[in-house]
């Protein structure tokens, strides 16, 4: 179910009042779970069995683990269950295709059958949430949940089950236990977040996507300016798309009294790549930090190992995004960039003394460059786009000039937002707030495309 659909409006119009009625009763989690399963089943009821199965396995395995002296064994079982499901549904095709390629390369002409299961919606997110729970209990950071209903609600809480934000058990389970109050201000600020997210997605991301799809659909037909403009457009498209989704998710949760972790914090104003990953898809970035980077040794080892750890973490992040070499390359590019900027930061170089605006521009350009491999249909396409950017002609990109307006407005807003002064206070004045909201709603009603596009991160 898409947040920006009538389906969801009807769904929420039923779920919310019942939640208000049941909030202080023992039926609250049951109702939320039922709603969440219905929300998921709207896409494909069969795959509900997968969520239920992994939930049951994790619940009982982690409870047993907490009491067992052989904790590591039980943790491995939980990881095996989650990563096994992820490996099968997300990576089996990629793995067998590459294995067949390798076998053929070494002269073995026996092809393994290539399975191509349907990728269950949100599998990367709900499995990561389950893994974080198991590891947190293993480390003793959080006690195993004793109530199956509450645990199942934690895994599949509908606002965040499809594309995050990934919530740690320590953040969401206590809220499910205490039934946070639903105040008028929580509801109105949730609605404000939802409207912002809806506008980002429908008005901005989908419009940018129309240009990006045209160029990236057949990059061989376009020259340098079009490829450059499409790449910049994609940088903004994916930001508006994903941050719009999480704004809507958090808005829905907030309206119901729940706080989900913030997932974006003006990432294109980051001043170095570490800063960027602290602002982009924050919950996933922190997941990789806590469950991959730190277990590998983090930065507490020698320089070489630290560099290796950063690189491996970024490669893993790339693989998590998708089963394709282009995502791995995207992760590798970020890994190289992160290592390079880390080394530079140790030197009292000219780079580190550059004005903040230049540093920010540099990070934005680098991140945008890396998005080429994320968006391209294949590594070959990505490389071809990079080559054509620097070697093809300068034909008119036919970039709709009007597209520059929303980008300029958002960028200006982000810069103003970072300030404390009269410019920032301008946004907090009631007529400005109200005027913006009215304009956004009118735009959504009268201008934006009527067709509902899915979210880019639904693919992961």
């Amino acid at each position, binding site marked *: 179910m898409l947040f920006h659909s009538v389906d969801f409006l009807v769904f929420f119009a039923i779920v919310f009042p019942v939640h208000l009625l049941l909030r202080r009763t023992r039926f609250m989690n049951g109702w939320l779970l039922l709603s969440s399963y219905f929300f998921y089943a709207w896409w494909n009821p069969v795959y509900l069995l997968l969520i239920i199965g992994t939930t049951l396995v994790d619940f009982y395995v982690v409870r047993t683990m907490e009491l067992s002296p052989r904790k590591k064994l039980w943790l491995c079982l939980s990881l095996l269950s989650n990563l096994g499901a992820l490996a099968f549904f997300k990576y089996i095709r990629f793995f067998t295709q590459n294995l067949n390629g390798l076998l053929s390369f070494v002269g073995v002409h026996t092809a393994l059958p290539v399975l191509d299961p349907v990728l269950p919606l949100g599998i990367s997110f709900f499995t990561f949430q389950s893994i974080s729970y198991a590891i947190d209990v293993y480390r003793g950071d959080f006690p195993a949940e004793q109530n199956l209903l509450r645990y199942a609600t934690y895994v599949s809480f509908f606002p965040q089950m499809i594309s995050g934000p990934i919530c740690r058990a320590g953040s969401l389970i206590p809220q499910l236990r205490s039934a946070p109050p639903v105040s008028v201000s929580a509801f*109105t600020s949730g609605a404000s977040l939802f409207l*912002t997210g809806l506008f980002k997605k429908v008005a901005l991301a989908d419009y940018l996507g129309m*240009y990006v799809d045209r160029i990236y659909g057949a990059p061989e037909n376009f020259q340098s300016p079009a490829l450059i403009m499409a790449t910049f457009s994609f940088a903004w498209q994916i930001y508006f798309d994903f941050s719009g989704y999480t704004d809507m998710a958090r808005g829905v949760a907030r309206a119901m009294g729940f706080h989900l972790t913030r997932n974006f914090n003006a990432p294109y104003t980051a001043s170095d790549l*570490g800063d960027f990953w602290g602002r982009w898809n924050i919950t996933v970035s922190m997941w990789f930090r806590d469950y991959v980077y730190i277990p590998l040794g983090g930065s507490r080892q020698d320089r070489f190992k630290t560099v290796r750890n950063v690189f491996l973490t970024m490669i893993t992040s790339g693989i998590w995004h998708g089963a394709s070499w282009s995502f791995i390359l995207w992760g590798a590019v970020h890994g190289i960039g992160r290592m390079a900027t880390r080394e530079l930061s140790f030197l009292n170089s000219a780079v580190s003394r550059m004005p903040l605006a230049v540093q920010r521009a540099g990070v934005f350009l680098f991140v945008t460059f890396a998005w080429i491999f994320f968006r391209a249909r294949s590594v070959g396409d990505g490389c071809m786009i990079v080559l054509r950017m620097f070697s093809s002609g300068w034909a008119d990109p036919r970039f709709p*000039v009007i597209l520059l307006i929303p980008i300029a407005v958002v960028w200006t807003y982000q810069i103003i*937002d970072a300030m404390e002064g009269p410019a920032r206070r301008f946004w907090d004045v009631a007529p400005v*707030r109200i005027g913006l909201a009215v304009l956004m709603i009118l735009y959504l*009603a009268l201008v934006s495309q009527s*067709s509902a596009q899915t979210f880019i991160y639904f693919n992961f």
Partner: protein
Amino acid sequence: MESMQATRPDQERLALNLSLRDWLVVALLVLVLLAAAPSIPFRPRAPRVERDYRIPFALSSRYDVYRRYTTLAADQFATLLVGDSVVWGQCSLKTDTLAHHLNELTKQPRFANCGLDGMHPIALADLLEFHAPAIARTRVLVQFDPLWMMEELRAEKGHVTLYNRPDLVPRLAAHFTGPFRETASLSWSHLMRNSPLKDWGERLADTRVDFLAWSLDHPYESPLRAISSTLPPSEDLHRQRLVRWDEHPTLPMDSSWSSPDESEQWKAFRRILSLLERRGNRVLVVLGPMNEHMMDIPTRTAYGKLKAALLADLAKDGVRVFAPSLLDSAHYADICHPLGPGYDSLARELLLKESAWMLGLDETR
């Protein structure tokens, strides 16, 4: 990695954070503006619709454009040609369609091309009912394409409408997704059709502007041009097959046909005729012309029986109907779409055999 820090909820400042009072003001303003929007005359009525105009292919689902176009065309042209891609001219340029050849032969701009690509009868019934009120009391040549009665294209009740024409239901309806999409959309459609907001919703849809897709083709032009112009330019931008059907290896078509009693498409077509009758239109039905050259013998025999049954069904109710002769094989692009010369032949035959209706002489007698 080590520099990552999550922001605590209480530290977060939302880009937009409206209080309850703000939301109430917003709701009031939005309601007032949306209620007033249909009355704002920001689109000047075009004095003339260009001859040979047809809705651009890319806007085949923009029913608000269809509504504006038919409003203008009903004022300017004596006869409106309504139907699917056969009328629209799927396999011809806009200067080679049936409407064009009729205008050429009569040496007057009498005929307007109000065809729309993919508009099968179930969809056409909704299109005419909800998005073409202005054609009431006009002369309408409505084409029935028997293609839609092929078993392969058989429509279960209502499904085809929603399958490829989700916006045909009144415009306050939006897209549904998921396994219950059909049921939800049908229910919503039924609700909207009987809603007191229906008229306002349709007028609001007319106010809707769509310069987004347009701006990709016109990147440096002001969006005001797209917003303020009554009709988008009629461009031959889509990929067309302008070659005869037998230039490529083609197997004879082997198909069966739904009977008129069972076909939802035929029932929808009868609803169209009832609607036009209620609206006071003077109607001529054109049945076909299908490319029988492309059918194998059993299919052609069955098609002949079907055509006879359809003609008898219409004749029984006194509907004026014309079944054109089979065109020359070289004049078809596929199973149902004529090429330009085919339209020329069809126009000549229509003017010859239905001259009184085509030239409006039946009204003057």
